[in-house]
Structures are given as structure tokens and as C-alpha cells.
């Protein structure tokens, strides 16, 4: 498989979204291709950077309180009542 064919798989590889066979094939390629390993490093850097910066972001406590206070009472589920039962 060429480097170009492997690139999209590298992105799925870091998300653990490859089948065992695809994973094995890609790992074999990465073992012998420094160019694709460099790409893997950069894509991992992006993924880690995004997830780490996201975990630092929390909902403002004022908004949390506002949402909790504004949630309406939950309406009862509507159940189908057969016509004959409504006559009783």
C-alpha cells in the first residue's frame, strides 16, 4: 500500500477505529515509513491538543444555575387510551 492510501487510515488508527486487519497492515507500514510516522505524530498532537484544551472548558456556574432553575416540570407521557375505555 502506498503512503497516500494509508494517510486516512492513520487518522482512524489514532481513534482506534480500524479493524484488526487494517491496524496490523498499517502498523507494518508505519514500522518502515518515517514520513507516515511523522504524519501520525502531528495528527496525534492535534487530537491530544484539542481534547486537553476542551477539558479545561466548563460551563459557567451562573449558566448552570440558570438552566437548573429554568427547567420546566416534566410533562406526563401521553398514553393511548382506547375509545371504549374513554366511554367508561
Amino acid at each position: 500500500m502506498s503512503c497516500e492510501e494509508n494517510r486516512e487510515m492513520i487518522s482512524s488508527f489514532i481513534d482506534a477505529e480500524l479493524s484488526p486487519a487494517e491496524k496490523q497492515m498499517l502498523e507494518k507500514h508505519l514500522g518502515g515509513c518515517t514520513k507516515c510516522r511523522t504524519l501520525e505524530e502531528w495528527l496525534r498532537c492535534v487530537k491530544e491538543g484539542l481534547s486537553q484544551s476542551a477539558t479545561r472548558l466548563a460551563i459557567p456556574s451562573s449558566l448552570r444555575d440558570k438552566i437548573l432553575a429554568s427547567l420546566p416540570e416534566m410533562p406526563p407521557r401521553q398514553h393511548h387510551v382506547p375509545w371504549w375505555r374513554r366511554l367508561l
Partner: protein
Amino acid sequence: MRTTISFPRGSKRWLSLSHEQRKTPNSTPMTDGKKSDFKEEAISFLDHLYRVAFHLTRERADAEDLVQETYLQAVTHYGQFSPGTNLKGWLTRILYNLFINRYHRDKRIVSLDRADAETGVSWVESLEGSGGEPEAEILKAELQNKIKEALDSLSEEFRTPIVLVDIGGFSYAEAAEILSCPVGTVRSRLFRARSILAGKLRSYVQKER
């Protein structure tokens, strides 16, 4: 070519049951205990929904409105949620569809930047065998500060899968369900989006060196 996921005005598409939910219809009425469980569990996703909303809208005030509206809609229509299924995914789908309906209608979404789509991944061709890796931890920390800026510059088409998978923690299948698109689309857009972001960060590193 841009693929726009849009719904007719006033559409209640986000209320429809997912494929999984249709397979296991909920026939048991929700007791009062279950109602408060639903509310409690839904509240546990506040931070998650806020992060997704913030990265979709890129505006704090818009994100706040979107999260608030999502909870109101979820509580109003909780009867359409099947207990025991993916509540995080259901809430995120409500949020995403509100985002699409509201922001596309208001034309506040920046259209796809073709330059990003076509040339943003070209740096990959110029990769050398070694020496270009983001190896140092200090460098990684610095890049994290730049990454939000780079993410905001992406068009919605590429930003959305990144927000759902890398920030929201969804699998490809879950992201595809939320976006109503094939898993292959999520996979290829993620690769292109990450490549564009990596290219932007790499240019920044080269300037600093």
C-alpha cells in the same frame, strides 16, 4: 462540494427516534422516579454540551443560548427518549439540529473555505523522513494554545466532526448518527480537518524556530 445538512423550517427531525431506538421501542411509562433520573442524568452532560456548543458557535453568548434551548427542548420532549439508550448522543443531536436550524437560517455560518479544503493538506506531501515531529513537550504545550485559534478558522464542514469526536468523545458511528451522514464521511472529513490543523500548527512552529 459542500454537503449541507439542513431541515425544513419548523422541522421536528431531531425529535425522531434513532435507528437503535426504533429497534427497541419504549413501551413502559416513565414513573416519577424515572423522570427525575432523566433530569439528573441530562444535567450531568452540561459541561459536555457547553463545550460542543462553544466550539460550534465560537461565541460564548451563542453557546449559552444553545445549551439552554437544548435542555428546554429535551425536557419538553423527553417522552421521545428511550431510557437506557444513548442520552449523551440524543442531547447532542438536539443541540446540533438546533444549531443547524437557527444559525443556517440566520446565515451566520461562514461558508466552506475552498482554500482549506484543497490546499490545507498539501503540506503532507512535503513531509520529510524525520526532523519535523512535534517532539518537545514544551512545544506541545505551546501548540495547545494555538489550536483553538486554528480550530475556529476551520469551516463548519470540517470543524463539526472534530468537535464531535475529539472534543465530544463520540465514536465515528455516533458522530455519523448525530450528523445524519455516512461513517465514511466522518472518517474522511476528520482526516482532512486534522491535516489542515496540523499544517497550521506546523507553519507556526517553523516561524518560531
